[in-house]
C-alpha cells in the first residue's frame, strides 16, 4: 500500500460509509420485521422514530459516497507518477485487477443510493409511511453492495506498490509493463455517433410521452440508464477526442483535469444525476396506486423526469459545443 494521505482519506471514507450503512441496515431490518402502523405500541413509536435515524445515516453516507467517487479518481490520477508507464488515472487503475471494478462498484452504489433517497423523499410525502417496505428492502440490497465496494477498494489500494528506485539497475524493472501505456481505445465513432443520437432521441421521446400521458415510466427509466451507458461509451469513443483536440486520446479521466477547464465535472455530474433521477421515475412507478400518494407521486415523477431531461440536454449541449467549436474534425 502507498501511504498517501489521499489513500488514507479514501480508506477512512469507505470505512465510515460501511459503518453508517451497516447501522442503517440493522435498523432497517428491525423496522421491516416489527412494523405495524395500526399498532400504537411503544415498539411501533420507537420504530417510527428510528426511520429518521436511518434516513439521516443513508443521506450522509450517500453524500460521502459521491464525494469519494471523485476523490478516488483524483487519487488514482495523483498516484500515476509512481507507476512506470501509467500516464494518468487510466494507468493507475490498471495497476491491479481491482482498480476498474472498484470504480464501477462506486458508480453502482451511487446510483442505488440516489434511488433510495428518491424513494425516501416520496415516502415522506404520504402520511402513512406508504413506501416503508420497498424502501428498507432496497436498503438491505444497498448494504452488501457498499461492503463489496469497500472490500474492492481496500484490495486495490493495498495492492499498490510504487516502482521506486532499487539499489541495482533500477531502470529496468519497468520494461514488462507495456500494457499500461496502451490507451483506452473505445468503439469506433462510426457506430457510436448514430447510437448516441438515437438513444438521446428515444430518451427525449419517452420523456415527452411520460410528461404528456403519464405513462411509460419504466421505459423512461431503462432509457435513462441506457443513455448513461451510451454517453460514457460515446465520450470515450469520440466526444473526448474533440475536447482533447487529439485523435488518439480516449481517456475518460483527463477531462477532470485543470487543463481541460474541469469540464469533466459538469459532464459526469449531469450524467450521474440524470441517471439517478431517471431511475427514480421508474422506481416510483409501481407505487402510484397507493392511496396516500395518488396525488403527490405523479407530480414528483413529472418533476424528476423534467430534471433528468434537462440534465441530459445540458450534457449534450456541453459536448455538442465542444464538437462544433473544436479545431479537430474527425
Amino acid at each position, binding site marked *: 500500500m*502507498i*501511504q*498517501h*494521505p*489521499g*489513500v*488514507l*482519506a*479514501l480508506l*477512512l*471514507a469507505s470505512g*465510515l460509509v460501511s*459503518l*453508517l450503512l451497516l*447501522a442503517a441496515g440493522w435498523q432497517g431490518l428491525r423496522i421491516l420485521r416489527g412494523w405495524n402502523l395500526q399498532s400504537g405500541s411503544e415498539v411501533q413509536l420507537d420504530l417510527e*422514530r428510528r426511520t*429518521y*435515524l436511518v434516513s*439521516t*445515516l443513508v443521506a*450522509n453516507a450517500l453524500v*460521502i459516497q459521491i*464525494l*469519494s467517487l*471523485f*476523490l478516488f479518481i*483524483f487519487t488514482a490520477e*495523483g498516484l500515476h*507518477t*509512481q507507476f*512506470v508507464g501509467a500516464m494518468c488515472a487510466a494507468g493507475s487503475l490498471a495497476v491491479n485487477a481491482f482498480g476498474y471494478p472498484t470504480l464501477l462498484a462506486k458508480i453502482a452504489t451511487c446510483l442505488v443510493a440516489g434511488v433510495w433517497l428518491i424513494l425516501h423523499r416520496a415516502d*415522506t410525502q404520504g402520511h402513512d409511511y406508504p413506501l416503508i417496505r420497498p424502501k428498507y428492502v432496497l436498503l438491505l440490497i444497498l448494504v452488501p453492495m457498499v461492503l463489496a465496494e469497500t472490500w474492492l477498494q481496500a484490495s486495490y489500494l493495498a495492492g499498490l506498490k*510504487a*516502482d*521506486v*528506485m532499487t*539499489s*541495482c*539497475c*533500477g*531502470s*529496468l524493472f*519497468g*520494461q514488462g509493463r507495456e500494457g499500461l501505456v496502451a490507451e483506452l481505445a473505445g468503439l469506433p465513432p462510426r457506430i457510436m455517433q448514430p447510437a448516441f443520437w438515437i438513444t438521446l432521441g428515444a430518451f427525449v421521446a419517452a420523456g415527452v410521452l411520460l410528461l404528456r400521458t403519464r405513462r411509460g415510466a419504466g421505459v423512461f427509466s431503462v432509457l435513462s440508464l441506457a443513455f448513461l451507458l451510451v454517453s460514457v461509451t460515446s465520450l470515450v469513443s469520440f466526444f473526448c477526442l474533440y475536447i482533447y483536440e487529439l485523435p488518439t486520446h480516449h481517456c475518460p479521466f483527463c477531462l477532470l483535469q485543470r487543463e481541460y477547464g474541469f469540464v469533466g465535472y459538469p459532464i459526469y455530474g449531469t450524467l450521474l444525476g440524470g441517471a439517478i433521477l431517471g431511475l427514480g421515475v421508474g422506481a416510483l412507478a409501481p407505487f402510484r396506486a397507493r392511496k396516500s400518494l395518488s396525488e403527490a407521486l405523479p407530480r414528483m415523477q413529472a418533476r424528476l423526469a423534467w430534471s433528468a431531461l434537462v440534465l441530459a440536454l445540458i450534457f449534450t449541449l456541453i459536448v455538442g459545443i465542444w464538437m462544433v467549436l473544436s479545431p479537430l474534425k474527425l
Partner: protein
Amino acid sequence: MRPSVQRYRNILDFALSSLLRRKGRNLALICVYTLVVFVIASLIFFVQALKREARELLVQAPDMVVQRMVAGRHDPMPVAQAETIRAIRGVEAVQPRLWGYYYDPVYGGNLTVMATDDTALAVESVWVGQGVARSMRVKEGDMISLRGYAGPMLFSIQKVLPEESELVSSDLILMSPQDVRSLFNLSEGLATDLAVQAGNPRELPTIAAKIVEQFPDARPILKSEILRTYEAIFDWRGGLMVVVLSSAILSFIIFAWDKATGLSAEERKEVGILKSIGWESADVLLLKFWEGSVVSLTAFLGGVLLAYVHVFFFSASLFEHALKGWSVLFPRYRLLPALDGYQLAVLFFLTVLPYTAATLVPIWRAATVDPDAAMRS
C-alpha cells in the same frame, strides 16, 4: 422568496443564535476542531509544496545518470565509457561529471563539491552556496581552506551563489575540474558518473538496457525514477504523520461525540418546547445539521488559514525536521504557496467526515426526544 428557501433561512438563523447562546461550549469545540484541522492541513500542504519543489528542481536534471557499481558500492567511472555510450542510438549527449562530498570537521556538515566547466571560474578559486557562506562566515574575496589529499588547499571565494538557487546550492562548492581531482586524489580518466541526455525520453529504458548490456557494472538511473522515488518518500512521510496523528483525530472524535451526546437539561427542554410548538423531528434534525455545518466550516476554514500561514510564511517550523530529512546545512527558503482542491478535499475527508459521522446518532437522539418527557425532566 420561496417559502421552502425561507424555511431553510429561518432554521439557519435559529441555529446561529442557538450556537451563540452557548458560546463557551461551542468555542471550546471549535478551538479543538480548528487545531486538528490546522495540524493535518499543515502536514498536507507542506508535503505537497515539497513535492512540487522536488519536481521543479528535477526539470533541470539530466535524463539519465550512469554510475559504476563495484561490489554493490558506487565507484568512479572510466571516462572512456562515455564514448561507447554516446555511440548508442538515441543518445544525444554524454557528460562526465565530477563531484563528491567533503566533510567539514569545523562546522560538522557535509558539503557538496562539484566541478564546473564554466571558464569564468579560475583555478584555485571557488563559488560557494549561501549555506556554506553562512556557516563558514565568509564573503566574496575571502579565502577558505579545505583538507585535500596532499595537505591543506587554499581557495579564494570568487562568488557567492545567488539566493534564488539556495534550495539546490546551499551546501555547494563549485571549483575547476583539476582542483576537484587534487582535492579528492582522483586520477585523470575517472569521473564520478555520467549524465546522459536522450532526444526522446521514451527511448530511455531501451538505452538503459543497452548500457547495462555493455557494462554489467553500470547502474543507470532515470530522472523519472528519481522523481518517482521522491514522490514516494514524501507521500510516505506525509502518510506516516497522518497515521501518527490519527490518534489525535480519534481523540477529537471522542471529544465531539461526548459533546454531542451530553445534551444539557436546558437543551433538552429547548428541543421539547420547539416540538411542542409545532416543529417536526425533521426540522430539529435540520437545525442540528446546520449547527454542525457552521461549526465544521468555521473550524475548517480557520484551520486551513492558520496552516497556510504556518507553511508558506513560517516554512512549517513545527514539522520541518520530521519531514525534510536530516542534515546540518539546511537551505533557508520560503515555500511557494501551492494549494489545490484535491488537498482541500483530502483534508475535508480526514477531518470533517469523522466529525459528522460521530455526531449523527447523538443528533438523532436529540431530535426525536419526546416533548413532554423533555420538558418534564
